[in-house]
């Protein structure tokens, strides 16, 4: 039961003056967003003011979508935020809408509880909020939180993988980002804290605090539970202090990244979960991961190639297209942390690319040097052959 109320949140400190955004210039609002350092809190961390500026440059933003779907399994930070601060999220959305020329504002939610919270705030507001903002409930699958899938579901617009929503006159923001926008513009708060699902419980967490102070008591786990070298290639250390380190992931338990010793909570950290990679057994080649992948990638081969050192270049497109939804990890009967392997594969491929690019540059330099030397020796020969009058 998460009985988080707004009062359990430490009161943020205002660094700027409150702004009356309804009567302020667009440029002032965007500058305030930039000054408060707001980034995409859905996980990508893209600077919000840049996204808005790109939209302003195009000049034709018709839709602004608030993404509150949160399809990461086991994470309920956005839902808890909607439950307690729906009003502020709506205001944040209206603020962004005010920057552009009356775009259509929509909020997408993934649960009935969130829908009720949104509808309640719309009706209690009394103003024309309910006519301006449309709230939609989408069926929560592992894929619907990804912005292109959500845009397709809500607006029936296909955004190809080499384009962005802004190219189709749509801007998508996470609800936590919009909440931060509201507090920054209306109240003058910089982004100081965020809602994080700590091992199942949504809590207000200060950005910059150490991750491990929120971990539950994990005394019961001993180094015997760790395998002597688990399948994703990580080496699980057997000392006590490293046990704790390898046991927390930022993000959902299926999709998260392993946290290092002194890691701090960042604006993009939406959950903390216990690592389960010690439960993994070898891959049995069942192929269920392939069946469940939204983009029909060859997940099994991506995993196996990483385990055997270097991914083949045939799979390069597969690694790039993976947006790390975690459906494959949820489906794997051997409980293999497949996403770790895919991320490793992406890194290795980009390293290989970098090495090849460096080799190419070095080859080009060699060529230029040879040409120059050749030209010089030709010159010299010509000079030597010139007949002299003496």
């Amino acid at each position, binding site marked *: 039961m998460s009985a988080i109320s707004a009062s359990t949140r430490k009161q943020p400190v205002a660094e700027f003056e409150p702004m009356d955004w309804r009567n302020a210039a667009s440029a002032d609002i965007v500058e305030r967003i930039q000054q408060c350092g707001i980034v995409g809190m859905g996980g990508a961390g893209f600077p919000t003011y840049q996204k808005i500026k790109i939209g302003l440059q195009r000049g034709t933003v018709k839709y602004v979508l608030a993404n509150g779907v949160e399809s990461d399994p086991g994470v309920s930070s956005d839902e808890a935020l909607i439950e307690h601060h729906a009003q502020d999220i709506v205001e944040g959305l209206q603020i962004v809408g005010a920057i552009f020329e009356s775009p259509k504002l929509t909020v997408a939610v993934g649960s009935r509880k969130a829908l009720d919270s949104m509808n309640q705030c719309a009706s209690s507001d009394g103003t024309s909020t309910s006519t301006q903002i449309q709230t939609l409930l989408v069926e929560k*699958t592992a894929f619907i939180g990804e912005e292109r899938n959500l845009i397709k*579901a809500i607006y029936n617009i296909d*955004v190809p993988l080499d384009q962005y929503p802004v190219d189709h006159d749509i801007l998508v923001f996470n609800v936590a980002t919009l909440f931060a926008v509201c507090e920054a513009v209306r109240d003058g708060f910089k982004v100081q804290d965020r809602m994080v699902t700590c091992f199942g419980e949504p809590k207000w967490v200060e950005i910059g605090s150490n991750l491990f102070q929120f971990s539950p008591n994990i005394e019961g786990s001993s180094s015997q539970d760790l395998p002597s070298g688990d399948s994703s290639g990580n080496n699980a250390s057997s000392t006590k202090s490293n046990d704790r380190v390898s046991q927390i992931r930022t993000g959902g338990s299926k999709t998260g990244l392993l946290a290092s010793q002194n890691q701090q909570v960042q604006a993009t950290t939406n959950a903390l979960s216990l690592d389960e990679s010690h439960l993994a*057994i*070898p891959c049995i080649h069942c192929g269920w991961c392939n069946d469940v992948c*939204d983009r029909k990638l060859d997940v099994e081969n991506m995993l196996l190639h990483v385990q055997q050192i270097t991914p083949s270049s*045939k799979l390069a497109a597969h690694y790039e297209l993976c947006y790390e939804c975690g459906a494959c990890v949820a489906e794997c009967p051997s409980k293999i942390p497949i996403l770790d392997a895919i991320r490793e594969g992406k890194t290795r491929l980009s390293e290989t690319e970098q090495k090849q690019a460096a080799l190419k540059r070095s080859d080009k330099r060699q060529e230029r040097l040879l040409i120059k030397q050749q030209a010089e020796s030709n010159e010299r020969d010509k000079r030597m052959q010139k007949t002299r009058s003496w």
Partner: protein
Amino acid sequence: MLHVLVALLPGIATSVLFYGYGTLLLVATCTLTALITELACTRKLKDLQDNSALVTALLIALCLPAYTPWFVGMVAVVIAIAIAKHAFGGLGNNLFNPAMVGYAAVLVAFPTLVVEFDAITGATALEKLAHRGNLTIAEVSGDPAFGIWGASKHEWLNLAYLLGGIYLIVLRVINWYMPLMMLIGMALVATLLDDGGSSGSHGSALFNWFAGGTMLTAFFIVTDPVTAPTRRLGAITYATAIGVIAMLNRKYSTWPDGFAFAVLLLNCFTPLLNQPRSIPSESRSSRS
């Protein structure tokens, strides 16, 4: 793996019904040997909990005829687990189906002991078909080795495995197209070869489906996740080829029932069929 064990129970029960304690003895010997071998190879008790050794042992015990001497079962299991599975890298890394390797090894090593023979009906129907000389189907099927629609006793065994297989498909443990394609492959070849029951024919498709180890292979061996291709087209090719070759094996080889060799041959092709495609298909942009 547990579901697979449960799905094999009807087959075991039917086998005990028809063949008495012979089956149980074989099952017990094989299981015990399997557990000891697996423990010896992995040195960790925890690794037994995936039940894969148990399944291998049961498959071998059910492939071997019920009154095969106990040491034959033991040899088959040791070869299957120690060599075909662990020497190749353990769970998930074996190229060949361990049960089939063990079974094929004893088929070749002890040909006179692994004969489909029991004291009551004599040789089974497939044996009779293989060694019948010039009799037509009509003439040879008067023999008590032939049952109502398949081989006697084996038709019920195959039915039991079929039920177990359907149970697994309903539970989505195995997929439906692999067993189906294997059976279709067999049926295709059987029908092509079956010219109305002459002395050259090897029985109709239906007969071949319910004789020998067809259903056991189709639902429990062909669908083994480790040794079968994972992508759909590869899996369908694999299963159909096994069906075709197994049927050809029945007619043209010296073994009355040679599905083990068909499976092993196709295992060689699995890595080829598993090659990644270079461009993934278009992403589906809406999922709900």
